[in-house]
Structures are given as C-alpha cells and as structure tokens.
C-alpha cells in the first residue's frame, strides 16, 4: 500500500516551481487554512503537484516570517504547525471589536456603592457595621476600577482606616451634577415606624 501511494505521489509530484510562486502558494495556504499547517501538511494538501523539498518549504516559511515582522499579522509556529496571528502588541487595540458583557453587579456591590454615595466620607468598617457583613476587597476593587469611588484620606481613629467617597465619574454616570441630586430616600416616617 505504502509503495503504491509513493508511486502515485511521485507521479503527481512532477511540476517545478520557482521561489516566488512557492512563496505565494505557501502564504496563501497559511492564510486560508482553518488550522495551523505543518511542512508535511503544506506539501500534501497545497503543493501536491510540485516537486519541492521539506527544506525548501522551511526556508520559504522563514522568509515569510521575516517579511511579516512588524506588520499587522505575523507568522507564528505553534504545536501543530505554522499559522498567521495578530501580534500580541495589538491585542489591546483589537479588544474593542469583541465585547463581552460583564455580569450584573451583586447586591453587596450595590449596597456598598450606595452607602459610600450617601454616607461619604465613610470607612470600610462603617460600611460593614451598617450592612452587618464584611465588605470584600473585591467589591472595593470593582468600584475603584470603575472609577466610581476613591479614597480621600484616613479617619483619625485607631488603625487610621481609609475613607471612601464617590467620584465625579460616579456623578457623570448617573447624569448628576451634585450629590444633592441623588434621590431622597424613603420618607423618614416610613422606616421609623
């Protein structure tokens, strides 16, 4: 069987190919294949008609790699072969194209934000006192990353805890000019009763 396959391949693999054409074909193949291509795969699937050595294909790939240095795509070697990829440096700029929705904020995050907005300046301990549960660092980080809260100093009590306040970005997001415009809480009698 192997013998026969070899014979057939030898028979098919008869055309000569110059470097320019070889490079065009290898490049095209790498761009249209839906998986990385090894030298063997390139030879079997795209260069079947041509008499060309593995070494020559490898040399051509090295040439192509050099030619794409610093461009918008680069030719990388991965486990199963070669493939064109966008350079790592461009990932941040390309990130805009693929957007993922962050999960909705938890009740803990919203309560913490509300307390900071209405009771600022406030320490983490005070928030925990009111909420009756610990405020995780993740919650503070989420709100800080979002630029909705900031630290504005330390409270001069033992431990000098950090004081949190809301930011102008917080007001912007909710289309407010001042904190006065935050909705009034339910009338006092509603929760004194």
């Amino acid at each position, binding site marked *: 069987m192997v013998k026969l396959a070899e014979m057939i391949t030898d028979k098919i693999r008869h055309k000569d190919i110059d470097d320019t054409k070889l490079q065009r074909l290898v490049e095209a193949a790498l761009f249209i294949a839906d998986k990385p291509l090894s030298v063997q795969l390139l030879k079997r699937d795209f260069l079947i008609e041509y008499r060309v050595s593995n070494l020559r294909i490898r040399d051509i790939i090295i040439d192509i790699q050099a030619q794409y240095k610093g461009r918008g795509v680069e030719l990388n070697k991965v486990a199963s072969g070669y493939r064109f*990829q966008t350079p790592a440096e461009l*990932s941040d700029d390309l990130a805009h194209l693929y957007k993922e929705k*962050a999960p909705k904020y938890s009740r803990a995050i919203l309560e913490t934000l509300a307390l900071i907005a209405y009771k600022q*300046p406030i320490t983490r301990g005070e928030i925990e006192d009111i909420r009756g549960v610990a405020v995780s660092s993740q919650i503070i980080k989420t709100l800080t990353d979002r630029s909705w809260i900031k630290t504005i100093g330390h409270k001069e009590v033992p431990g000098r805890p950090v004081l949190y306040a*809301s930011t102008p970005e917080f007001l912007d*997001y909710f289309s407010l000019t001042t904190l006065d415009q935050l909705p*009034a*809480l*339910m009338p006092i009698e509603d929760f004194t009763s």
Partner: protein
Amino acid sequence: MPDSKAKLSKSTVPDKELVSGVMLQQVLPFALLRGEAIVEKPQDLFIPPDALEVILEMFEGPLDLLLYLIRKQKFDILDLPISPITTQYMTYVDLMKDIKLELAAEYLVMASILAEIKSRLLLPKQAVEEDEGDPRAELVRKLQEYEIIKKAAENIDELPRLDRDSFVAKVELAENFVPEILNSQVDLAELVSALQGVIKRTQAYEHHHIQKESLSTRERMAHILTTLKDAGIEQPYCDFSDLFTVKEGKQGVVVTFLAILELIKESLIECVQTQIYGEIRVCLPRQA
C-alpha cells in the same frame, strides 16, 4: 447501468447530422449516449429511460425546451417555423408523460399556445384582422427575453466566486487577546433600593439622619478632604477662607462651615492658627 451516464453534449453533435433546412428535421441528435447520437424518434430508437430522464430534467421549463429545439436546428427565431416546432415540442411532452416525469402545467400551457399560434397562421391571410400583428411575436419576445436571462445566469455562474475561485484570508488573534469587557449597567433606582434594603435590615435606626438635607454637608466634607489631599506634601494645608466660595451665597457658606465642623468633630481635619488674628489654616491631621 452505464447507460444512465448519458451526457447532453450539444457541442459534439456532428454537423453533418444537422439538417439546415427549415421543415425537414426528421433526424435530430440532441445528445450523445456512449458515443451514439440519440435522436428524437423514440419509436425508432431505443432510448434508455434513465438517460432520457436525465436529459428531460435538464430543461428549466417550456421556454427552455423551445429554445433548445430552435437553437439545435438553427431556426431563425424571428421567423419561427411554428409547425415543426410544435410537433417536436409535443413529442418531448409525450416523452415526459411516458416516463412519468412530473409534468408541470407550464409545459401544457405552452403546448396550447403553440397550437393556437399554429391555427392562426393556418388561417387565410385576408381573415387576419388589419391591426393584428404576427401571432408569433409575443412568443418570440418571451423566448428572446428568456434567452438573455439564461445566458446571464451562465455568466454569473462563471464569475469568480468565494470558496471556489477565491478564498478569504483568515487570521487568529494573539494568545494574549482578551475581549473588551463591557461594564454592567446600574440604574439609579437600583442604588436607592439597595440602600433602602440596608436600612430596613439594620436593627437600630441610628442612621435615620441619612436624608437629602445632610447630603450637601456630606458632599462638602468629601470635597474638603479631597482638596486637602490634593494640596500635596509640599503644602499640606489650605487657608480656611479658600474653602468658601462667595458665589454660593449664604447657604453655601453655611454648608461649608457645617462640613468643617463635622470634619473637626470626626477628627478628619485640624485647624491651626499660627498667630493671633492670623489666617486659620485647615490641614489633614498629622500622622500619629
């Protein structure tokens, strides 16, 4: 059965078998079957039903069949010989019926149109009304219109197209690629309801003073602290008077003053006066 591999091979029909006259096409090879011409006289020649079916199914409809008959025999479409065309057309339609090809109504409609044209042509010339043109005109127009589209479809089929003649380049994203995360949306109402939830949960009602009025003081407190923090290490203080904005009027002054008092009470700021009647300076408390 190899017979079923019959191919319609218009171009290879030998010329000598084509009779170029108008009315005498008795031997019309329209296909080659294993190298032999198939002629349209089924009663004289055995045509394997499979092959015939393949051939007949190739027609897109009555107009296509008519065009085929006209083109094969090099009839002048503008001077359509209705009589032989009708005869041949009917032969095909009969064939289709014989091999139980699902015969569309359109083929029968065309047959009746042809018969009608034929009968009108047979009438003596004088009987034809003055303003009535050649009864073939409408059919000829339709045939020409259809042939244009038939050719256009063939042209479109030959256009270079994706995944057959040209392939789109596709490139993977870098391994370090992370899609942009869209921030979750929060509604102001959600914020209020979150806080009211907290208040409801709280056993003691010591936070009843949370109300709209106090907010401006609270906000001013945060503002003063920010100002002091931003003042930096070089000059970690602020003149007392600088904290007030005359533009805000009396109410603003009161709010600022209350904020300063509250900050002092909570030991968040300190006020210092270096000389009697000198400027009062506000600063953050010295670190312990």
